[in-house]
């Protein structure tokens, strides 16, 4: 029987915290960028301009049809070369974080755009008509009337997607980037306490994600009663 030994956890907390910061940094940047780019994709897809709608649909379908880990690997392999050729970076500069964020953001945008598209369509058509009848342009009506209502309805779904994204950040291990999961793995590997460290990391993910989804549920109920 395996004897549990948790002694490597206290000393490695600062290192694990560094990893957690990487995970959160990727999550937050990808959520923000993913929502912005996802909104643009959704607007393109709903637009009356054929080629724009077609382009957005192609993008969304492409990214939804390939595994995330593959996208991350592509970006891990491509982005450094791209950046080096564009910006003349110092040799060996660490662009893994940037390539990870780019990969996540572009991938998540495809999912966000579908959530946002459904959200826009859930706003009654009459709202756009009323805004237009007041003399607002299409862009003003979208920005001032339709999108605020769409986002208010979508917040729970967007946050839930953010929680999934937070869990998925552990996939950056393919680029040997030390996020929280990667950091826990390294410590466990170093001390020969892999099982304990992975159990500990799992418990942290569990607590954080459960807490976050509770908050989302609470907000959702508040929306319903409002």
């Amino acid at each position, binding site marked *: 029987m395996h004897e549990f030994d948790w002694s490597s956890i206290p000393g490695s907390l600062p290192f694990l915290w560094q990893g957690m910061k990487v995970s959160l940094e990727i999550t937050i940047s990808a959520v923000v960028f993913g929502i912005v780019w996802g909104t643009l994709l959704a607007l393109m897809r709903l637009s009356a301009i054929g080629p724009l709608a077609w382009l957005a649909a192609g993008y969304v379908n492409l990214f939804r049809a390939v595994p995330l880990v593959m996208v991350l690997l592509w970006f891990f392999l491509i982005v450094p070369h791209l950046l080096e050729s564009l910006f003349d970076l110092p040799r060996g500069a660490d662009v893994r974080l940037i390539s990870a964020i780019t990969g996540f953001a572009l991938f998540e945008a495809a999912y966000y755009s579908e959530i946002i598209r459904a959200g826009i369509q859930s706003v*009654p058509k*009459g*709202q756009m*008509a*009323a*805004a*237009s*009848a*007041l*003399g*607002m*342009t299409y862009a*003003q009506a979208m920005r*001032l*009337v339709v999108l*605020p*209502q769409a986002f*208010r309805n979508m917040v729970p779904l967007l946050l839930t997607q953010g929680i999934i994204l937070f869990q998925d950040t552990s996939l950056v291990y393919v680029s040997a980037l030390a996020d929280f999961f990667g950091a826990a793995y390294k410590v466990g590997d170093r001390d020969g306490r892999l099982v304990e460290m992975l159990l500990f990391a799992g418990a942290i993910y569990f607590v954080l994600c459960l807490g976050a989804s509770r908050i989302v549920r609470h907000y959702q109920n508040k929306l319903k009663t*409002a």
Partner: protein
Amino acid sequence: MISMNKVSKHYGTFQVLAECTTQVQKGEVIVVCGPSGSGKSTLIKCVNGLEPFQSGEIIVNGISVGDPRTNLSKLRSTVGMVFQNFELFPHMSIIDNLCIAQLKVLGRTREQARDKGCRLLDRVGLGAQAEKYPGQLSGGQQQRVAIARALAMDPICMLFDEPTSALDPEMVNEVLDVMTELAQEGMTMMCVTHEMGFARRVANRVIFMDQGRIVEDDSKEAFFEHARSERAQQFLAKILHH
């Protein structure tokens, strides 16, 4: 003020509007009625370009609605419209509902807009509700806010699309009273409504539509005394005797 000449619209092979022709003079109140699905909403939405049409011509205050060079947003900002389902913006307070287009479309200052908004709310009897949200108001109150919101733009004419048909019966009159007052002040109005009492009180002319056609377009006296078409007679019989 509004002139329509042979306006036609179709969805595929389905003809929604067939060569509709009519005129609305400044200060006139026109009531549009007819059975459900006869094209009343479509007709009235063509006036401010919310619905495109395929042929014919609509001129509003000298501007051609169908002309691709027309700045439709600008034209719409001069034509007030009130919808069956109010369509207040639920994420904004009542006063913000009245101010938003004044600020963003007309470029008024916040002070001017609030001032105007408050005055109009007082006028429709809702001055005390300014800071509430649409969801906290009754249907009749919401529709009065919607009328005030349209008036805040200082429109040259007003379009109403069945403004009372989503309301509980006891709230119909509070909305009709506001509309009657507006008509008596000389506002040019085109109202889709089945409220024949309102039509008798304030309309100058009544238009009766059936299957996308303007079947009757006559003074209200002529319409109520001796509607020419059988369809209109049937319609009147049904609506007045129930």
